[in-house]
């Protein structure tokens, strides 16, 4: 299992170091590493410091780009993830479950963000006691334990340990929640207004050939919820999943099913928050759960069929001699004209030896950004079924570089108020038999946002 966990800043200085097992950082590492840091003190902590330094020297300060997120140095394995300038590294000498270690590191980031916001050097330094406390709780001898923020917040807070003298009931409530079957929700939550916010967030990914052929396209979507519900409500979520609707269609043969069948979508795969009863989904394909309190991600899904591609990019690149390029890009919006897309940005890469660019665009603003080697064209809003165009003349410095310019793809960013996969929420029912509110009393909000993921057109 995980032998130790370190957090570094971008310089490679250790901000947090927690060692769970002695095996990490023994002889092998010592031999390999010369004296690196003067601050390495006495034999006391020298065992772990070897591992700490090995990672700094071989990964953070490495000359070349990191070629793998898993590094093996002297029979010790280092897993790392990076969040802005901060490195998180887990160290082990055993054959651990690698997927679990990475999942844990991400979870660790989530938990930290939930407690103190952005993971930055300053925040980590200011909250180091809290981080140690969290690490003590969520990782025991290298084994991840309950890491749900909802549960953790009941007994680890930024103001120190919450209730200094908790009553016996409270204590057992805490422990049973941390270890219990519904570890993500505590009992006795009360709201005056029971409210639910449901966001369907999709990112649509596209790779298109210059000729307009779709090489690959998929939507990865998330259903994100904010629930403010009293008690221990039982929820049931329904959407226009093809399998469910076909099944109903067969059973009832009603007109309604046939009608909605048209709009159903084929979901390639989906994964759920741990509150969802997976065995029930497996057998009946129904999504039922007791929701955590506050924000959480209920499910993720992926679809590849019948995707609405909100924009089409048509590139035209012409090389005029050796020192000039003419680029024309047309974008077409392909959705209902009553809807508006926002935050549209088209990024057209330019060769490294670009000396000057002249731009003409019909709509929005375009700029050549030399530092990014790209023309960035921004349009604030654009309605459906419209098209717009930019043309650019790129002047090139003559070079003797034999290698041709690789022509990176043209990428696009946007936001549209619908789900490109065609997903529709059919219902979200709330049952709380013990308290006296019914499904009708809950105020529910649903919103669809489609964003661009990696939306590229080769040119």
């Amino acid at each position, binding site marked *: 299992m995980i032998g130790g966990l370190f957090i570094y800043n971008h310089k490679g200085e250790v901000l*947090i*170091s927690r*060692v769970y097992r*002695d095996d990490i950082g023994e002889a092998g590492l010592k031999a390999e590493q010369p004296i690196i840091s*003067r*601050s390495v*003190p*006495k*034999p006391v*902590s020298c065992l772990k410091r070897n591992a*700490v330094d090995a990672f700094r020297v071989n990964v953070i300060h490495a000359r070349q*780009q990191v070629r*793998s*997120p*898993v590094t*093996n140095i002297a*029979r010790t394995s280092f897993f790392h993830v990076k969040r802005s300038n901060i490195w998180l590294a887990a160290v082990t*000498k*055993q*054959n651990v*479950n*690698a*997927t*679990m270690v*990475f*999942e844990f590191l991400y979870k660790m980031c989530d938990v930290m963000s939930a407690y103190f916001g952005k993971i930055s050097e300053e925040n980590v330094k200011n909250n*180091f006691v809290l981080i*140690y*406390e969290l690490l*003590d709780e969520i990782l*025991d*001898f290298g*084994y991840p*334990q*309950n890491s749900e923020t909802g549960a953790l917040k009941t007994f680890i807070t930024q103001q*120190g*340990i919450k209730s*200094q003298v908790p009553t016996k009931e409270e204590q057992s409530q*805490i*422990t*049973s929640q*941390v*270890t219990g079957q519904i*570890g993500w929700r505590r009992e006795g939550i009360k709201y005056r207004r029971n409210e639910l916010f449901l966001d369907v967030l999709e990112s649509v990914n596209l790779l298109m050939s210059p000729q307009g052929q779709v*090489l690959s396209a998929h939507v*990865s979507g998330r259903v994100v919820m904010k629930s403010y519900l009293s008690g221990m409500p039982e929820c049931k979520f329904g959407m226009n999943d093809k399998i469910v609707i076909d099944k109903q269609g067969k059973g009832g043969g009603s007109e309604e099913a046939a009608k909605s069948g048209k709009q159903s979508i084929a979901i*390639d*795969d989906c*994964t759920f928050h*741990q509150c969802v*009863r*997976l*065995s029930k*989904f497996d057998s009946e394909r129904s999504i039922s759960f007791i929701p955590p309190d506050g924000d959480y991600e209920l*499910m993720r899904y*992926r679809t590849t069929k019948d995707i609405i591609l909100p924009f089409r990019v048509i590139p035209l690149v012409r090389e005029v001699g050796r020192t000039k390029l003419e680029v024309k890009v047309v974008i077409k919006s392909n959705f209902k004209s009553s809807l508006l897309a926002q935050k549209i940005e088209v990024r057209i890469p330019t060769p490294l030896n670009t000396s000057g660019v002249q731009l003409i665009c019909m709509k929005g603003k375009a700029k050549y950004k030399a530092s990014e080697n790209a023309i960035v064209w921004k349009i604030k809003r654009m309605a459906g079924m419209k098209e717009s165009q930019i043309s650019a003349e790129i002047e090139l410095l003559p070079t003797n570089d*034999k*290698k041709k310019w*690789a022509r990176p793809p043209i990428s696009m960013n946007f936001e549209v108020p619908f789900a490109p996969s065609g997903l529709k929420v059919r219902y979200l029912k709330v049952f709380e038999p013990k308290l006296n509110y019914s499904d009708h009393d809950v105020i529910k909000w649903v919103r669809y946002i489609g964003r661009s993921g*990696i939306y590229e057109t080769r040119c």
Partner: protein
Amino acid sequence: MCDFPFFSLVCTGEIFELKAELNSDKKEKKKEAVKKVIASMTVGKDVSALFPDVVNCMQTDNLELKKLVYLYLMNYAKSQPDMAIMAVNTFVKDCEDPNPLIRALAVRTMGCIRVDKITEYLCEPLRKCLKDEDPYVRKTAAVCVAKLHDINAQLVEDQGFLDTLKDLISDSNPMVVANAVAALSEIAESHPNSNLLDLNPQTINKLLTALNECTEWGQIFILDCLANYTPRDDRESQSICERVTPRLSHANSAVVLSAVKVLMKFMEMLPKDLDYYGTLLKKLAPPLVTLLSAEPELQYVALRNINLIVQRRPEILKHEMKVFFVKYNDPIYVKLEKLDIMIRLASQANIAQVLAELKEYATEVDVDFVRKAVRAIGRCAIKVEQSAERCVSTLLDLIQTKVNYVVQEAIVVIKDIFRKYPNKYESVIATLCENLDSLDEPEARAAMIWIVGEYAERIDNADELLESFLEGFHDESTQVQLQLLTAIVKLFLKKPTETQELVQQVLSLATQDSDNPDLRDRGYIYWRLLSTDPVAAKEVVLAEKPLISEETDLIEPTLLEELICHIGTLASVYHKPPSAFVEGSRGVQHKRLPGSAGSGESADSPDTGSAAGVSEAPPAVIPSQGDLLGDLLNLDLTPPTTSGPPPAPSSGMQMGAMDLLGGGLDSLVGLLHRTDTPQSPQLSHQSPSPPDYSPTEVGPGDHAGPVKARSPAMGAGFGAPPTAMPASFPPPVSGGLDDLFDLGGSVGMPMGAYSPPKSIWLPAMKAKGLEISGTFARRAGVIQMEMTLTNKAMSIMTDFAIQFNRNSFGLAPAGPLQVLTPVGPNQSIEVALPLSTVGPVMKMEPLTNLQVAVKNNIDVFYFSSQYPISMLFVEDGKMERQVFLATWKDIPNDNEAQFQIKDCHLNSDAASSKLQGSNVFTIAKRTVEGQDMLYQSMKLTNGIWVLAELRVQAGNPNYTVTCISKERCVHQGSSYRSNMLEF
């Protein structure tokens, strides 16, 4: 205490200040001071001097302060064990605290204080906590047992904690169960043989119940533990699979991959015709694809695992090619892995798409990635024949870009394409030659030289080209040198007139000026070949090369099976068995896939045989170097025995004296010929048989093999030629030799083929005084009829001739009967008649009956004899493991014959090596309940394959043999029996 004066100054000042604050009366100040201490500790300053002061703060009811002090303790207790004891009392007291959070904290921290002295104080509190009423305390205590075991394993066993831990598996709280499982799994790993985690259907059921209820991490522990279980039968296997599949929809990728591991493993047990098997296969694809939309680090782990899964069960993802297309912004490690999988999934159906993508990638920026993309194009050409033409033209386009590394990479792969499709794409050679000057990497140079040598007759200036390489001969890498030597010899054999000088030059460079034994030896062999018999040399050097395999970089199957058992773990990321990177006893045990349904029956067993075959020969797939390494680590290789003759000739070689060498060889030949079959196992060491030398397997990496790997092949090669040489290189042998020289590969030439003792075929009474006794033998790949002709008449016999009647296997004399001198009265003469198998065929009864007519100056005599079928077994009768398995299954049961061989006192290994001498090749070996099962294949001269299963039970002299073949040949029995009786 500090190493640097400056530091110590600062330390002392700071420490003094902290000390004062720690001893302050005010709680807040104390807490702040401890915080400062921890902060210093984190950045690596030594604050161990404050130990007593910090420990004094432990007695507090402020939980936060307590936690901080504990943190300090965990860090420094080990360096100050005596003082750590001071803390024990507080721990013991805390373990009795009414607040479960504090009880758990105490037991958790105590386990982390890794001081031996403390452990004994830990036992009592731990025992209480394991039975605590609060699940939070119990789950913490469960992990604590693992901690304690790590410090003092004996103590844990003596105190009976392991039993308590086992009881916790039945706990009502799922998290307690999960932690207990995790702790037990870890402890069990360091006791490979103990039956600690004794998994039985009841416990499995408990685990599966807990699986639905516990946290995501707990689910991972349980799934990883489940993967170690081997279900009793396919029904149990299916029911577990059914309960595990819902986990595939979990948001946590680790849960998904661990579930995939369990399913992949248990699927082995399911019969393939089961509906559920197909359903399961379909269910596996979507979650695997979904893993690719996770964060890049997880994608990387997932891709490494998918690479394994695709090798084991390609059908799962065969339609999902598109998701592996590389995105421009993918991190490089993800790109490289995706590319690997794309090649594995490439097939005729999707090749157009794949090629278009690969071409795109070849223009990217990252050098490694571009190289791999170019190489991938070549691999597609080799894998999908229909696409070869397109691939070649794509490669040519890329060569036109003149980007140095692209050109070099393209040339390396084009060489392989030439190997795969000989005489098809040679028109591109001209383009390749244009780029000769830009090649600066050994592999590319070697590939180019190979091409020039191989197609010397079509390149007008081949001699000039090669000569230009020769100038800097000594600066080249060994790979290039060896290649250059071979290429020039080829050139010489093709155009002897104008290249004499060149070949002499290279031979002297290789033999006289080089320190590399490999190069020198190869040089001498060519030299000797060319000087003694140019015709033979031609046959050896220019022999037809075996085709290269379609799939490259495949992981060796035994290793692959082990890695499948480690899906999701580091082993699957590194593609190495855990023993290769984990120290100590942990992870040393090799995991195996379970046998398929009804493993007692023969149908599927070769599959499992491969799993159990540790001592077995690695199969014919060529592992890449890296994998080979893992493989070597895996196999307990006995040091290659080079006993017997080989050292002698090779030392002769090194002395460079031709005559001596010749003499040595001749005497050896004599020696070998005198040696009779019963001693053959000893001699068979010389043949470079794959089981002993896995390095020789480096094979058709075509000259790319490491030097070390080649040496044994060469050494062994010396042993082999003597048998073949006197016969002036019969074709099959020269093929083998060429392999040795040219490829460093190996073709076994077993010499100890069984031949029955001579018997009288034609008594003198029936043939006017001519008595013929004889036998059949297979020597060096040639079937021979060995006869003794005795003249028992009064007059001289001359003009011998022989003819065969049509027979089952088309045996016919390959030449006239060589009786040159007349045979006088009471004189006998030994004669060996080589036989071919291309004569007219007619089925005989019994099958191996041969009717012969012998003529001499007196009359024509007829007789019939029976030959042992074993002499019809050809040398290349070793079937590939997969093919074997498939064939075995294809053959209907009624083509099966079973019989017993009595009174054999050999163990299975000896039997196997003995049979190998008769070209009966052992493909796999498996041990079931003390019974060794050998799976063997042999091929008859007419191309019929015969598969056999040989069961050997220790202590029982009777063997059971089951033979099957596509054609019914019941006669198999007799041959086997005769082979065995020989023992």
